């Protein structure tokens, strides 16, 4: 795939369709590629990489990139194309300035899962069929790719590209995934259990803002939490209330807009399953207001900027809850 991508990128650079390419720059280890902009064939040859660990959703970079002159080529996975659509819908990205190559995807690996499987001191990772051969300081190990897929890929909602100018690889289908299982599990707990669960998770938050800054739905010119005049600005989550405030409000602000790309949980240095908050909103919206997948199109009305006369009342929370 990487070779095909480089080849196509070079062609598009040469024929002037685009003047730069947004992709990944090879890192030092097998799993640490960095999103980067390439502006020449040489740069692509030298550093462009695409593998099972290039997991970042590049669509958010387009907010900045499409403000620059000329067209930018970007490689997007199916889930990233949802984000791009949503950004286009919200006029945050100028779609005309992007050339999207949709890349078929069968899931990205999560290095933390490798580590969790006891693979310490990873020196190199080679993909061999359905397996990874992992070279470590403490010997070589083999692991099935399926066992180290990122959580979001295990419950992948769609392998279908929502927007693209061309496709590399195979376009997939929308998947009837079980991504809401964990949300449901929590819903079925008692209120006390849920409280304990979230207290434990959110208390680890260090308010590094990685979840916010990586989120393709969080592209505010100025976040309320950075705005001293907003009354809720805070740089640190000073106590358990502010932890909740930040995450609830953030989830609310992206509710109906979040495409469930899973970047928030991927980047959380503390491993907090933040995607569950977003998925809870998605699940509620689906159940209460009809199925809605943000990023499926660029013109529908989001569920929070919409209503019907016979929407349920908030008391539904009582009616359907356990206890």
């Amino acid at each position: 795939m990487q070779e095909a991508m480089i080849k196509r990128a070079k062609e598009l650079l040469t024929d002037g369709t685009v003047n730069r390419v947004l992709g990944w720059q090879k890192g030092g280890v097998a799993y640490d590629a960095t999103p980067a902009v390439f502006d020449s064939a040489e740069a692509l040859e030298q550093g462009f990489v695409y593998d099972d660990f290039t997991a970042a959703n590049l669509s958010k970079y387009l907010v900045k990139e499409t403000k620059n002159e000329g067209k930018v080529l970007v490689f997007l996975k199916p889930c990233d194309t949802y984000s791009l659509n949503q950004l286009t819908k919200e006029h945050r990205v100028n779609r005309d300035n992007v050339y999207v190559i949709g890349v078929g995807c069968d899931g990205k690996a999560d290095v933390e899962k490798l580590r969790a499987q006891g693979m310490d001191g990873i020196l190199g990772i080679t993909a061999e069929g359905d397996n990874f051969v992992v070279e470590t300081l403490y010997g070589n190990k083999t692991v099935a790719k399926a066992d180290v897929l990122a959580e979001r890929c295990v419950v992948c909602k769609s392998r279908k590209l929502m927007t693209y100018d061309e496709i590399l690889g195979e376009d997939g289908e929308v998947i009837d995934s079980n991504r809401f299982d964990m949300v449901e599990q929590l819903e079925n707990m008692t209120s006390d259990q849920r409280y304990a669960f979230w207290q434990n998770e959110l208390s680890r938050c260090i308010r590094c803002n990685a979840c916010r800054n990586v989120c393709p739905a969080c592209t505010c010119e100025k976040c309320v939490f950075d705005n001293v005049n907003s009354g809720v600005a805070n740089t640190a989550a000073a106590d358990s209330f502010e932890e909740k405030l930040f995450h609830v409000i953030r989830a609310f602000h992206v509710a109906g807009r979040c495409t469930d790309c899973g970047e928030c949980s991927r980047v959380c240095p503390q491993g907090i399953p933040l995607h569950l908050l977003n998925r809870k909103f998605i699940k509620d919206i689906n159940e209460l207001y009809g199925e809605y997948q943000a990023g499926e199109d660029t013109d529908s009305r989001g569920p929070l900027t919409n209503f019907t006369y016979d929407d349920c009342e908030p008391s539904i929370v009582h009616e359907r809850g356990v206890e």
Partner: protein
Amino acid sequence: MQRIGVFVCWCGSNIAGTVDVHKVAEALKSEPGVVISTQYQYMCSEAGQTLIKDAIRDHKLTGIVVCSCSPRMHEATFRKTAAAAGLNPYMVEIANIREQCSWIHKDMEVGTEKAIILGRAAIAKVHLNAPLVAGESPVVKRALVIGGGIAGIQTALDIADAGFPVDIVETKPTIGGKMAQIDKTFPTLDCAACILTPKMVDAAQHEKINIYAYSEVAEVKGFVGNFSVKIKQKARMVDTTKCTGCGLCVEKCPMKKVPNEFNLGMDKRSAIYIPFAQAVPKVATIDPTACIKMKTGKCGLCATVCEAGAIDYTQQDSFIEEKYGAIVVATGYNPINLDKYDEFAYNQSPDVITSLEFERLTNAAGPTAGKLLRPSDGKHPHTLVFVQCVGSRCDVANEKGKSYCSKICCMYTAKHAMLCREKYPDTDVYVFYIDVRTPGKNFDEFYRRAVEEYGVHYIKGMVGKVAPQADGTLLVQGSDLIEGEQLKIKADLVVLAAAIEPDKSARPLATMLTASMDTNDFFTEAHPKLRPVESPTAGVFLSGCCQGPKDIPETVSQASGAAAKVIGLLVKDSLTCNPCVAHSNELMCNGCSACEKVCPYGAISYEDKEFRMPDRTTAIRRVASVNPAVCQGCGACTVACPSGAMDLNGFSNSQIMAEVDAICK
């Protein structure tokens, strides 16, 4: 830091009876920014207001808090008081310590404590108040009426009679609308044309009324008092200034096989046509889809015969732009399409007709010159079956029909049945109904006459099937719910009371006007009870069936009502805007359109604006701006906005949070 004055009202014993007003005034004295805190028997009295005014001047107050009755009672009073003393009226906050404190509590201690907290909240809020100045926007003294039916005509006449110029835009070649097609009107049975056509003439001759017939609204910009509308005048291929309406061209036109829409396709017209004799404007129109000249380039007969030289085959659609202060929507209704009603055989048999078609069949100017003849064979029908509620009052699940009652069918069917029996006593007339609804002046009497005097057979029950028979009759199978039996009637003519729905042009128009519609595409009124002739979008008014099914008297009263509202608007030279409106901080706006989507008034628009960035570069960003003349200050946008760029004057995020803080502390 503001300099705040606190004024605690006793309201005689109304407040002072359960709230220790001295204690309240004393406690609020130590709140930040409070420079004077006092109490008085009646703050709203002349003396009380003087006390406030003096305090504003003496203490150089920048904000005041009045602890008194509900702001719904005296907020306006104290705002005026403040303004009289030179303080911006929006620097006033009211702490409601009567309705929401003294009157609901009996214990002095409890009441006093709560009053202090409410006072604190008001003080916290007033700290963040900013002086607001109500903006003004000029009013263009001209109205636009969209739709030239009876609703539009009446509205236009009323407005014009008040001295304001009005333009009517009608999409058909003539004004008149549905009423022009109707034969008689219930319950008085006077002739529709006799009462309508004089009004059409009045409208045409009124010096303040200008009719754009055969025209459509193409674009609407602007807001209340200042709309800018682009009107598309469709090409008639006839110069209306020259055409005398003599009708010679119509007579000579060789193409005479065009279904006549005025008669609902029951007869034919020529390619160049005048819809009906009393059309206004009475000018010919060429139907380009039928005209031989237009299609093949040959013919041109009409041009040859026209002495006025009015025919112009090269005419193009033209556009006019005009400014208006108010817009009245009067787009009317249509019967629903019955293609899907196979059970009534509407498409199988020409003898199954709609009530509107029936109107044409009984109209002297209609295809049969007023004789009731079966469309299929032109024979006189003997048994007639009227079916009510075809497509009205359906279950939501029923996709063919409408959930609402079309309102007029009961009465016009009674009229049809009665007329039928009166003119043709040899007929048997059956009416299948679910309910007969006759709430109107003389309506029930009218219906009873149909039953009692004219012997119309009213059958409570629904028709299940209409089956065309080999002998040309129609077998109507229905149930009689009262008798509890299945009926089979051999009918010669079946008349369906088709539900009515808003005209198809309404939906795109609503989008242009940013006026809201309900799920049935009827325009929503600003308030269902209290503002039934206004759209929630300021400056847009509703007249007639575009807002919901109505009969003629109701339509005319709403038309006059809408006209009165328009006149009320146009007499003003400028509009004072409510300053408590939303405003967007452009530096924080993402341009995401969330606010625009939830705005019920279409007050928010977007523009690409160039910004100088702190690093001295410039960037073009899409930002929202609120039109203060249109915004009504509901605040829906402020919550839809994730960045908090959108805020509401008078109820800002920080003000409400300050109140929350003060209450909870």
